[in-house]
């Protein structure tokens, strides 16, 4: 029972609650019940998608695999939830910096920080790769005619 919260049945329950809330939200939107000129309900397809999701989530509560725990969740830790969020935050920060400083200046600190965070050693190898890789990527895309953010270095390229 202690591991029930990781089981398919528990996942089904979380999904029923989330999708149910979304279903209710969509149901109470004015556009959902708007009838188009061809007689079709504007909200019908989104409701069909949500209905299918809700049905499947509800099926997970009772189907033969309900007691199974998905393999990746068997040894899941709380950090599994927030570490990816931190990673995504880092990537978002990198993109935010890219838009202001340009790709060439924003990518190396991101690459260096992430390579070191993931455990790449020696540090000098990480530094070398963090400088060389963005330069190569920038040259490659520029050659192909794809404009990467230039930021403060716009005048130089």
């Amino acid at each position: 029972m202690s591991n029930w919260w990781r089981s398919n049945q528990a996942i089904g329950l979380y999904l029923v609650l989330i999708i149910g809330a979304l279903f209710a939200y969509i149901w109470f939107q004015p556009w959902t019940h708007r009838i188009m000129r061809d007689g079709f309900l504007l909200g019908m397809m989104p409701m069909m998608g949500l209905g299918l999701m809700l049905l499947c989530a509800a099926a997970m509560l009772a189907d033969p695999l309900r007691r199974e725990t998905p393999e990746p969740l068997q040894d899941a830790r709380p950090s599994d939830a927030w570490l990816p969020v931190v990673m995504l935050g880092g990537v978002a920060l990198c993109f935010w910096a890219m838009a202001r400083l340009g790709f060439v200046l924003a990518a190396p600190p991101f690459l260096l920080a992430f390579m070191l965070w993931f455990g790449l050693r020696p540090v000098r190898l990480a530094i070398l790769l963090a400088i060389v890789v963005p330069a190569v990527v920038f040259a490659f895309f520029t050659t192909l005619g794809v404009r990467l953010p230039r930021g403060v270095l716009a005048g130089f390229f």
Partner: protein
Amino acid sequence: MQIEAFYDALALVFTVQTMFWLLIGVFLGVGLGAIPGLTASTGIALMLPLSFTLDITGALGLLIGLYKGAVFGGSISAISFATPGAPDSAATVYDGYKLTKKGKGRKAILTALYSSVTADTASDIVVILVAPTIALLALQFGPTERLWLMVVAITLLGTLSGRHLAKGMLSAGIGLFLGTIGADPVSNVARNTFGQDWLRDGIHLVPLVIGIFAMSQMLDQGLELLRKTRKGQQVEKSTKDLFGKSSEGLTFREYLSCWREMGIGIGVGTFVGALPGLGATVAAFMSYGIAKQAFPEKKIGEGSIHGIAAAEAGNNATVGPTLVPLLAFGIPGSATAALIGAALILQGITPSPRMFSLHAEVIYALFIILILGNFANLGIGRMFAFVYARLGQVPGEVLVPIIMVMAVIGAFAARGDPADVYMMLGLGFLGFLMRRVGIPEAPLVITFLIAPLLEENLRRALLINRGDWGGALFGSALGIGLAGFAVLVLVITFRMNVGNRLAQIGHEEDKNGK
């Protein structure tokens, strides 16, 4: 055959640019496949924005070359380190790695290469012969039949994509919901935008595929690196054997001795590849299992080139046929076919049976590229396979951040809209959660692509039948037959637990292999 269109196709394909991008595609694909954890879908998702900058044949060359190369490339690390580059090559590990341990890694890789190319070419020829005929039939379909055909495809994908029926169908439901965000495809009225104006145009395909296929996988691998659960590579020095000139190669007689296993692979792979939802992994394990049962004297599973031939022929024979549902019906049957379909859409060509008459030159060009891709695969595989074997040793600590940056560039480069990057990150997190709870991603992406077509056909059928739902849904015998088939698939899959049985094929072989 439209001779003029064929000549046009030849002129389009045999250009320096198209040949260059085909070679680049295969070159990248084999390398990508050789790196454990990176799949053909990830590679194509990352290359999709780059394909905008190319003409149609260049884009097809790049993506199809990448796909063909990646499916073969997976066998390189399976043979060298017992770590398949992608699940498609897992069946190759049993015999391939045993041969490497015996110092016959070179022979194993060459067997994988030749059987892959042979099976791929044979199945491509089947596609070229079969797809136009099916497309001709599909042209007779009205909106009701097309609607039910899409429902059948979604049902097959949802039920066969994983071992848990409910999760497969749930993924299809998410795709259908996401596909309805933005203006509706008939009246162009905004809906499901959560009050956000920037969602009026809907979710763009590029951030969706990069987020779901590439970013989610990188989050997964990043987490694995942080938890240090990655097992160390066991045979670092074995790659040296592959480079050594003294290492045993593959004779022509040995290659010919595998014809039965390759035949099984071609048959199984072509059939499985054309069905929506199954894919290369199932084909590889099925043909491996059949060959093992049929020829016990060949000692498949104990380090035999015949086992490699069966598995590799099986997975590569799915490459061409996976495009059949896309070309004949406009419905992608796999994630990779969906991505190639997306590339066509982004080039202004909607995959459908009408493509055979409207863009015959593109169809012929695609067929030529399918065949040429095999020669490119053979040449690049022969020259660089042993170099690529080292790529499998590039640490994840280097690869994961680089691919994250590439994902950002890909999402941004497509339209130059920063919102796409944040959308990609959000969808990456959704994909990561789906992976964690065992929900397959392929039905989501394919249903997302089909959703507008589904709605268009439903509304067209309703208009033709003056709002009568009965007539719109069940107005033809074929429509009723297809609807019945969809229900039958659902019932049989649930009653016989088909998804679970298919997933077990690999697990059972795993146990036997050990």
